[in-house]
């Protein structure tokens, strides 16, 4: 199938590249289907081709709706989610199939970009069953805007992990 995107052009996707969010995500209600793409190089975050740490979640129905996400542990090794996943979405999931991504927010100020990540509400995905859900952690004190990276004012293309 073809997925139209405003950022990346038309992308040829296989069914196994998609993840269904039956509950949508907060702010974007209703069932959503997202295409998962490995993100390219974000300097300083060790995004090696074999072990990408950045992923784009591209909405299949809305070409303009995409989220940049990160594997949390590269920047926050101590990150842990102690959440009960035993619900309608993950009830039949194997623990080994569970992946965790955190949504990255990019705020621009002129040439500078500040990247923060939402550790309070991780996106949990069952890799095998291809279902996902953004869960809100009631326990723990993980911030909604945890610093992730910042571009240098004089080198707008260069990113340094903070």
């Amino acid at each position, binding site marked *: 199938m073809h997925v139209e995107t*405003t*950022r*990346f*052009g038309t*992308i040829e996707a*296989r069914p196994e*590249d998609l993840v269904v969010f039956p*509950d949508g*995500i*907060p*702010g*974007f209600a209703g069932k959503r289907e997202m*295409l*998962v*793409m*490995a*993100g*390219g*190089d*974000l300097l300083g975050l060790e995004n090696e*081709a074999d*072990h*990408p740490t*950045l*992923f*784009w979640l591209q909405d299949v129905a809305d070409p*303009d*709706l*995409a*989220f*940049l996400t990160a*594997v*949390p*542990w*590269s920047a926050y*090794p*101590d990150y842990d989610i102690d959440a009960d996943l*035993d*619900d309608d*979405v993950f*009830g039949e999931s194997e623990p*080994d*199939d569970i*992946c965790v*991504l955190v*949504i*990255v*927010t*990019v*705020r621009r100020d002129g040439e500078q970009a500040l*990247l923060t990540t*939402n550790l*309070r509400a991780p996106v949990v995905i069952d*890799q095998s069953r291809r279902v996902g859900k*953004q869960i*809100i952690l*009631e326990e723990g004190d993980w911030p*909604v805007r945890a610093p992730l990276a910042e*571009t240098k004012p004089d080198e707008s*293309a260069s990113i340094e992990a903070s």
Partner: protein
Amino acid sequence: MLILTRKKGQSIVIADDIVVTVIEASGDQVRIGVDAPRHIAVHREEVYSQISKENEAARAPDAADLVKPSGATPASLPKRPPRPAS
């Protein structure tokens, strides 16, 4: 809005399977217990609202120049994300 007066220990029932109980009330604080099926998400309003707003801010990020999909080809997720060695 339906407004009901409840005493400590009393509940209200929503639909067939959601029970909201006043556990404790003191001063301007009320402790509330919610008994609901697993698929019903229950959150503090301000937290849910904060997450919604952050998602709005994160949607369509102005970052396609910073982080390009590698070859624009979909990739599978790491089966087991790296965890800190313990």
